[in-house]
């Protein structure tokens, strides 16, 4: 576990914790961007170049912008005055601590994990492209359909309904 890995992991976890605990939503969104960038750096550390760059392109360049737009369109850009935590938040934190303990114990004490580190795989984008076109072509087409459906659905859901005026002249 090299030093760059530890530093990037710390930055990512700190940013994720900040994203979930800050009061101001826009600060949460910006901490989220840092967490995504940290994750992309972790992918690059693990020799998954294509996935790391795709993570930045999709998450930082698109999903983070979407979240920011949604925050502004729902007028949540100011620091809220009321409580930000749901009632019963302590149970949520307790359950997540239990989840992490279980997962951590399983990771540290499992005998199914491989002990040796294999050499870095020589993946090229060409291999990914070949696989996408031969073995994984059906998921690729389905993803295309899914993205089209999601796009059209998102536009329709968020579309402003044409305003109707009722009998007293008020607009609904």
């Amino acid at each position, binding site marked *: *576990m090299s030093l760059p890995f530890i530093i990037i*992991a710390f930055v*990512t*976890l700190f940013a*994720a914790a900040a*994203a*979930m605990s800050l009061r101001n*939503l826009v600060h*949460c969104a910006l901490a*989220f961007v840092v*967490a*995504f960038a940290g*994750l992309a750096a*972790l*992918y690059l550390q*693990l020799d*998954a170049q*294509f996935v790391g760059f*795709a993570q930045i392109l*999709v*998450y930082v360049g*698109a*999903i983070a912008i*979407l*979240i920011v737009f*949604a925050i502004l369109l*729902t007028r*949540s850009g100011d620091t809220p005055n009321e*409580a930000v935590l*749901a009632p019963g*938040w302590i149970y*949520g*934190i307790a*359950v*997540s*601590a239990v989840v992490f303990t279980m997962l*951590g114990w399983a*990771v*540290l004490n499992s005998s199914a*994990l*491989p*002990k040796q*580190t*294999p050499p870095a*795989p*020589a*993946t090229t984008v060409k291999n*990914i492209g070949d*696989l*996408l076109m031969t073995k994984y072509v059906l*998921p690729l087409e389905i*993803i295309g359909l899914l*993205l089209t*459906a*999601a796009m059209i*659905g*998102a536009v329709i*859901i*968020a579309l*402003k309904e044409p305003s109707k005026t009722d009998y007293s002249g008020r607009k609904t």
Partner: protein
Amino acid sequence: MTPLQGCLLVSALLFAIGFAGAVTRRHAILALVGIELMLNAANLNFIAFWRYGAHPEALTGVMFVIFSIAIAAAEAAVGLALIIAIYRHKKTSNLDEVKELKG
């Protein structure tokens, strides 16, 4: 602690943080953000197992993560559109106040 275990611990902690945030915060968008963090933690798991497991030349982990990122993008778009539509209707994005089926 092998590098694989280090990566898996990081991803488990990220998952726990995302879960805690999704469950404890009141704002709808932050619940979605928590879900995205959990998805990302699972992606990190896949890449770690791909890199340190058997047969990394089969690229299975990388393929799974590519599709997972695409699906997460689609789900984030639809989820945020839903939140905007609910806000327009109920004028609030507080999950505790959007608890009635009426309207």
